[in-house]
């Protein structure tokens, strides 16, 4: 395995964003030209509660260095209660991942409303920095999936 020491480590971050709040918040940070790193790749889901823990495990298996899940603020869910499920499910999942050696800073749930473009960009900047400090995810990465 070749590691280029000169090149700064660029983490791969998968962001799941709910269609109604966070995806719109991400769009708003685009409309306002608020920069955040290219490391963040967004996947649109109807609601944060659509995110199956399998998706997050899969992302880590395939080499993602951090996964962030964004949804509507508690109480503001477009589907009334979806983000409450997210909150409970992810609390469990993240503590299990922590146990498996995926540091807490690699996983995050954040509530971003459609009006919080600035918060979205700030969260992504902050999260990317945090993951960058941790270095690449080697714990769950399946080397067979690594691109040659």
């Amino acid at each position, binding site marked *: 395995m070749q590691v280029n020491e000169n090149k700064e480590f660029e983490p791969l971050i*998968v962001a799941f964003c709910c269609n109604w709040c966070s995806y719109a918040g991400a769009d708003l*940070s*685009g409309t306002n030209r608020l*920069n955040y790193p290219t490391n963040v790749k*967004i996947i649109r889901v*109807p609601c944060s509660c*659509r995110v199956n823990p399998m998706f997050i495990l899969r992302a880590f298996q395939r080499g993602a260095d951090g996964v962030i899940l964004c949804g509507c603020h508690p109480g*503001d869910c*477009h*589907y009334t209660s979806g983000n409450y499920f997210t909150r409970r499910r992810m609390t469990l999942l993240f503590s299990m991942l922590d146990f498996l050696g995926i540091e807490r800073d690699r996983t995050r749930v954040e509530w971003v409303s459609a009006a919080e473009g600035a918060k979205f960009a700030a969260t992504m900047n902050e999260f990317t920095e945090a993951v960058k400090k941790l270095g690449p995810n080697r714990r769950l990465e399946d080397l067979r999936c690594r691109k040659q």
Partner: protein
Amino acid sequence: MQRIGVFVCHCGTNIAATVDVKTVAEALGHEPGVVISQDYQYMCSESGQNLVKNAIKEHNLTGVVICSCSPRMHENTFRKAAAAAGLNPYLVEIANIREQCSWIHKDIATATDKAIILGKAAVAKVHLNAPLTAGESPVAKRALVIGGGIAGIQTALDIAEAGFDVDIVEKQPTIGGKMAQIDKTFPTLDCAACILTPKMVEASQNEHITIHSFSEVTDVKGFVGNFTVTIKKKACYVDETKCTGCGLCTEKCPMKKVPNEFNMGLDNRTAVYIPFAQAVPKVATIDPNYCMMLKNGKCGVCSKVCSVGAIDYKQQDSFIEQKYGAIVVATGFNPIKLDKYDEFAYNQCPDVVTSLELERLMNAAGPNGGTLLRPSDKTHPHKIVFVQCVGSRCDDSKGKPYCSKICCMYTAKHAMLIREKYPDTEVYVFYIDVRTPGKNFDEFYRRAVEQYNVHYIKGMVGKVTPRSDGKIDVQASDLLADEQLHIDADMVVLAAAIEPDKTARPLATMLTTQMDTNDFFTEAHPKLHPVESATAGIFLSGACQGPKDIPETVAQASAAAAKAIGLLVKNSITCNPCVAHSNELMCNGCSSCEKVCPYGAITYEDKEFRMPDRTTAIRRVASVNPAVCQGCGACTVACPSGVMDLNGFSNSQIMAEVDAICK
């Protein structure tokens, strides 16, 4: 074999300036299944859409990926274009390379790389897209308006005008709401009752409007176009069909010490009562908490004096079940309780009143017949202090964080009316800011200051202390002069914050609509869908959505009516096809999905299955009602067997996206 077309938009220079679109189109052209990959200046323009349409026909495409702006912007545009070219609209995917790529990144190389990855994810997803067909469901041609204040009345009148039947459910014995209690309205100072009561009568006489007064909504089932609502008509112990509203029973009732809610408890009514003279429907109601006949069976005066025999002590709550196509929520507001505000001595001193109480004190139909007198000793007040923002714009837990919006204007109105009627009375108004946005509002406020010499003082009142001589000591600070003030007031009027009605939260749960942290109903979009709730078929009217004055309430009420009419004129509505579905062969009927469904869209049914050994067995399996399902996907994650899936965002599609991004 999939045949996918990729179309990369320049969006003028919006995308092309930071993303090398040619490279993106080139790279995506090598993806498996992609048969054509093009870039174009403006993909959403007519010629851009024609490019897509022609490619679909020419290459017989089975899937389309558009790399352009946010799907929230143009997904529908491209779906329509695909449908016009004969491709199922749900076989179109958008890669958002503008809002989420070109606009936020500066470096062309990395932005282009990211755009390629986003494009690849969309290609990977579209491989697994299935053609979806939107179903249809019929619309019941009847609307329900919950709340009979000015918002509900206006909405009902407008819907009835369009020829649809409307039911108003009002929890009080009469419609009219808060506006009926108000004396004059700002900024025109015309009499509230004079403009409201004709509308109330109009509503009661309209052949399309049914008023269920003294009733509550107890259950809501169903979905847009097809709600089934249970309405509880509370027992009022008077036969509405017989009562003529003559009022003889209210005169003769011996129980005369019941606090009168309509006059904010400032005077008393009888146990059998008609809320006010212009009440609609004008029928008597017996208050079971005070009626001696209902409490201990000794009295019966009202039934003796009633000439039409309308009194029925044995009346029970009755329930009505009705189908509706649309529901309009107009539950309105209430001033907050001031129990926690000891510093203003509201509970200790009768001469410290809220603005709504002052409204009743000044009303000709109020407890003093329109003469402003102190509630304690019925003398004329000579010095009145108004305190603004009591509970509004508060960051502590006692009050509300928002501005109640109407207080600045009604306080200016009160001050002006008092100065007009009693020029010997001095009026002080303590404010944080005076907020007067609105047509003729600032002019109105300036009139209060300049023409009527109302003393506006920037600063908050710290303490209100009732004194033994009947005066009230008001301690306040004048922020502009930077001094402490002591005012010997005769009356203090508190502009209490307004909050949504207490019935709103349980109602929101029944309707599966959203509320914000302050219990105001949340609109579907703060700018573009201000009167729709996020739940289809439920519309918002008036102050239940946020603090509003009367003109705004009426405007919103009419807007909600227009939206409801737009729904009711349709014979059927198309449903969102991106709904959950289960694989019945593998479902074990565990009920996990049913428990998490916020819409009650999942039911269980017993189905006959052929088993491998050629016998048949009956199994309990989940079944999703596609007309009720809103497509959140909560059930897909809850399903332990993984057989619940969501159209348009299936497990395999999202997995494919994850894989494409992480490759």
